[in-house]
């Protein structure tokens, strides 16, 4: 342990309460601190919530009354934006939501399996070419997509898989998202090694150590991966645009851009309405997923 400034952890007794509540009597300083903190939080909430509220209000305004109106007061209820937006693009908007959901589901499963396995390999195993392998993994994160998209497209075209969801899902099962591999490596390295070694002494192999010891402790990292994969894949425009050509396979971000054309009249009201619709799954996913962000070593008893 490298934290030399603290004393040995004491055994836990009694209910876990935030440390500052344990003080016998909150000092004036503490109370001021708490009020300030709450005020700051509320200010940040306002800044963070403003855009989504504005989007909702704008989605209820008729075209032509959206721009130049930053107000949050909903003075019109143009529900027709929702009905017309839902049906504006050939297929009902549910098609795009479902397509996106399919891609997202595949991506999440793929990332969870492949990235956690790769991370275990990097963090806990010692093998030949480990350093070059790690460098390659980082290179994957560093190269701009715009110069590898054409070679990658050629590969998928040769495999005859353009206009399918495979180019969007298969890479996730192959751990090409270096971000998450690296994320989980850092989490695994934060877990006490004694756990592994105790299990090894009990005769557990790598498979068991990984599945039974580390994975349960990695819940926050896995939840982070799932949530981020959800949100980033849901919002990923470029690769979905490139690989999906049949409008019946279009995903939400591709469809959303189709409302707006820089050179002609655009349906901004419909675009905002469908933007609101398409943010909802994200909000729900985050709301559901966030409780897993906080489970982990803290709730499993520590070491």
């Amino acid at each position, binding site marked *: 342990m490298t934290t030399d*400034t603290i004393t040995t952890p004491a055994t836990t007794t009694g209910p876990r309460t935030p440390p500052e509540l344990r003080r016998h009597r909150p000092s004036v300083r503490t109370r001021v601190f708490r009020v300030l903190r709450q005020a700051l939080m509320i200010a940040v909430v306002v800044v963070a919530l403003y855009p989504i509220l504005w989007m909702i209000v704008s989605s209820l305004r008729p075209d032509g009354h959206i721009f130049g109106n930053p107000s949050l007061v909903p003075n019109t209820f143009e529900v027709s934006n929702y009905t017309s937006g839902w049906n504006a693009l050939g297929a009902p908007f549910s098609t795009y939501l479902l397509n996106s959901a399919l891609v997202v589901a595949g991506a999440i499963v793929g990332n969870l399996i492949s990235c956690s396995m790769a991370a275990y390999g*990097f963090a806990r195993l010692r093998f030949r070419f480990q350093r070059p392998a790690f460098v390659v993994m980082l290179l994957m994160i560093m190269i701009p997509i715009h110069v590898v998209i054409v070679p990658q497209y050629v590969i998928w075209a040769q495999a005859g898989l353009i206009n399918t969801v495979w180019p969007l899902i298969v890479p996730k099962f192959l751990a090409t998202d270096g971000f998450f591999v690296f994320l989980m490596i850092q*989490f695994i390295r934060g877990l006490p090694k004694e756990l592994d070694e105790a299990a090894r002494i009990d005769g557990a192999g790598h498979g068991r150590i990984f599945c039974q010891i580390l994975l349960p402790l990695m819940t926050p990292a896995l*939840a982070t991966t799932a949530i*981020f994969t959800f949100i980033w894949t*849901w919002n990923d425009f470029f690769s979905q645009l490139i690989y999906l050509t049949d409008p019946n396979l279009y995903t939400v971000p591709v469809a959303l851009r189709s409302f707006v054309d*820089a050179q002609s009249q655009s349906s901004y009201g419909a675009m905002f309405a469908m933007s609101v619709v398409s943010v909802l799954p994200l909000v729900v996913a985050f709301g559901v997923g966030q409780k897993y962000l906080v489970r982990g070593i803290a709730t499993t008893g520590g070491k």
Partner: protein
Amino acid sequence: MTRRRSGPRVRQETPDDKAALVFLGPWLIGAVVLVVGPLLASLYLAFTDYNLLQDPNFVGLDNFSRMLGDERLHHSLAVTFTYVIVGVPAQLVVALALAVALDRGMRGLAFYRSAFYLPSMLGSSVAIAVLWRLIFGQAGLFNGLLGAVGIDTSTSWIADPDTALWAIILLHVWTFGSPMVIFLAGLRQIPREFYEAASTDGASPWRQFRSVTLPLLTPIIFFNLVLAIINAFQSFTQAFVVSGGTGGPSDSTLFYTLYLYQEGFGAFRMGYASALAWLLVVIVGAFTLINFWASKYWVHYDD
């Protein structure tokens, strides 16, 4: 990453090559087929005049010598460095501060966490571009606020070459949700007992933060820092949507990858764009190396 093991731990004489092959198998396939292939292809194209539509011709170092006199490239480097140097620390400090505040027993924690993450969920959609114009435009909210406190200005913050970059840096800081969530997950791995011990010793919240939180969080801080720098160098979408793909006004928001994209896809100079990509890899790689080197002195791993 293959840090030499220290201390009298259990020694493994045989490397885990076999297990590594299992755990890293999917990753290896992905790396070889989907990453190394396209990477080598782009490296080769960097020495050609590839224009996307015709066979590339080998042109030696032409693309690299062109970089020397390319004023827009030099300008985009300046823009990008400013963004990295200001935007990354600003975003991480905000994310860390809020994560710590949220971690420590707050009323309405789940609500705050979701609210704070909202801006990151919206992605860089067209709606955000419209919104940012509404806030930082000439007749925007921001000028309204300034007017309310007696500063009358008609600056369009988003369209003045002197301030446009700062409006985008602010947009970057505003999407602090992702690093915040990662910090939160990391904070949850810190055993509560440490805080309780420190608290019993009468350590102030600030001192607890300094002596417990920060040291134990360093692997996650390190992760966020490395990834934030890599991502900031590749920053594309925000400037793209806000400036309509131009990097304007007067190239004041011409991020490196935006320039690369304009060269590759706008002007069909994919050979040059590939060369630019590799220059970026060298720059980002250097930053990452420095980061890893420096991490020895401040990141604490439990191994």
